[in-house]
């Protein structure tokens, strides 16, 4: 019986220098900053996780928000009462209030991390290419998430100013049932063709942001099985087109049908 260890030693001794396996450093538990290293919050991947989680939370919110807004499409008499009732229901609810804080925090965190990530990536680039045709190897919207996000941020600011701020701090007249008449406020704002145009353009930007973002978030969180990946791509398309087309349709419809 030959001893395998013995055999290997014989082989190794034929080589010059130390045996090969002496140089291999065993994987050590992280020495520096053992506490933080566990979660590694400063890692590129952790930063992307945060973007993905906040992004997906916003995605979920958008779906619920769209369902609520669809009430605007009901026949005018029903829509007014229904929509104002819905608005009152939400604004009186402590649970909704908590969600809204979470929502603001998510948008803020998502946007701040977008900036952090973009700055770090710029730094990683170093010297720029003189002649750059790399664009042909990927989809434009996957490279322009920052631009698309900035358009969304711009939209959010006017959107919140015109509806959320008015409802919270502005003077909104009451409807005949004594509820704040958000419905009439919305219809009035959508009278403006310019407003509707900007709204639609922003929704196109949102659509592209979601088209890349939805699938990218799944990737970031680690969905690697090709079967799920396929489904997530399809789901992402349906979701992105559904959300952006849905949100864009409402002002267009209200503008032309209730003008």
């Amino acid at each position: 019986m030959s001893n395998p260890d013995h055999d290997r030693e014989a082989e190794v001794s034929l080589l010059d220098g130390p045996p090969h396996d002496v140089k291999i450093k065993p994987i050590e538990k992280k020495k520096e900053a053992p506490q933080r290293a566990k979660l590694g919050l400063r890692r590129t991947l952790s930063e992307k996780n945060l973007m993905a989680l906040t992004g997906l939370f916003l995605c979920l919110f958008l779906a619920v928000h769209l369902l609520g807004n669809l009430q605007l499409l009901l026949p005018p008499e029903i829509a007014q009462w229904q929509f104002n009732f819905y608005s009152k229901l939400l604004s009186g609810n402590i649970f909704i209030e908590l969600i809204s804080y979470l929502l603001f925090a998510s948008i803020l965190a998502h946007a701040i991390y977008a900036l952090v990530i973009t700055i770090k990536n710029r730094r990683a680039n170093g010297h720029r290419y003189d002649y750059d045709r790399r664009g042909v190897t990927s989809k434009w919207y996957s490279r322009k998430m920052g631009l698309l996000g900035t358009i969304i941020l711009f939209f959010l600011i006017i959107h919140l100013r015109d509806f959320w701020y008015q409802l919270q701090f502005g003077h909104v007249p009451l409807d005949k049932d004594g509820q704040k008449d958000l419905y009439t406020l919305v219809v009035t704002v959508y009278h403006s063709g310019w407003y509707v145009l900007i709204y639609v353009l922003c929704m196109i930007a949102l659509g592209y942001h979601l088209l890349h973002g939805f699938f990218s978030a799944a990737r970031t969180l680690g969905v690697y099985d090709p079967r799920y990946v396929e489904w997530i791509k399809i789901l992402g398309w349906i979701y992105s087109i559904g959300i952006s087309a849905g949100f864009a349709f409402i002002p267009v419809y209200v503008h032309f049908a209730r003008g």
Partner: protein
Amino acid sequence: MRIQLRVWRQEHKSKPGQFADYELPEVSPDMSFLEMLDMLNDQIMRQNGRPVEFDYDCREGICGQCGVMINGRAHGPLANTTTCQLHMRTFKDGDIIHVEPFRAAAFPVKCDLKVDRSAFDRIIQAGGYIAASTGEAPEANSILVPHEEAEAAFDAACCIGCGACVATCKNSSAALFTSAKISHLALLPQGRLEAKERAQQMVAQADKEGFGHCSNTEACEVECPQAISVLHIARMNWEFNRAAFF
């Protein structure tokens, strides 16, 4: 065929570089891109100039040494092809070809088209191995590996470390390179055991080297000479996230 070249010339890491124009009157369409550069160097040296430095070794697409930016694309206009496997028939008579080194803060230019890719070595050193001394190749049936897993691990192991993924990435991210090794070893029973530490340490090292985030644009998979799947990046993310929680 007649080829005009704009080549990045930089004598030293700490000296500024600039483009220089050359003309090669008689390039054969059968030449590889590197052979065309050899021809250029021959011409330069005959005029007592300093030849253009570029990396290569095997010239058959397996070592990962070659790699330059050709007309704004990593390894040139073809997908999944190394620079040494790119042939001049891909270009037309009279073409102007821009040749630049791979650019990334973590890949400093050493000279002309040569860049320092030792950051990749340090990422591997951070955990891209199995710590146990494995001895001789064991009896193949003593540790069973399903065929699909073995193939998937092999696909990841095919990475030749050329750096095209970094060069083509808008963020200069080393995600594809790092994930290929993490995925390769995580898929095999011997490597599985250290998957968590490996993911954490390799990701940490890639960050330390100054590579960027992965935005999932998937450009890397297009340029990768081994067509390594971006799904390995997803598996790396999974291993990294898993390491933090369970």
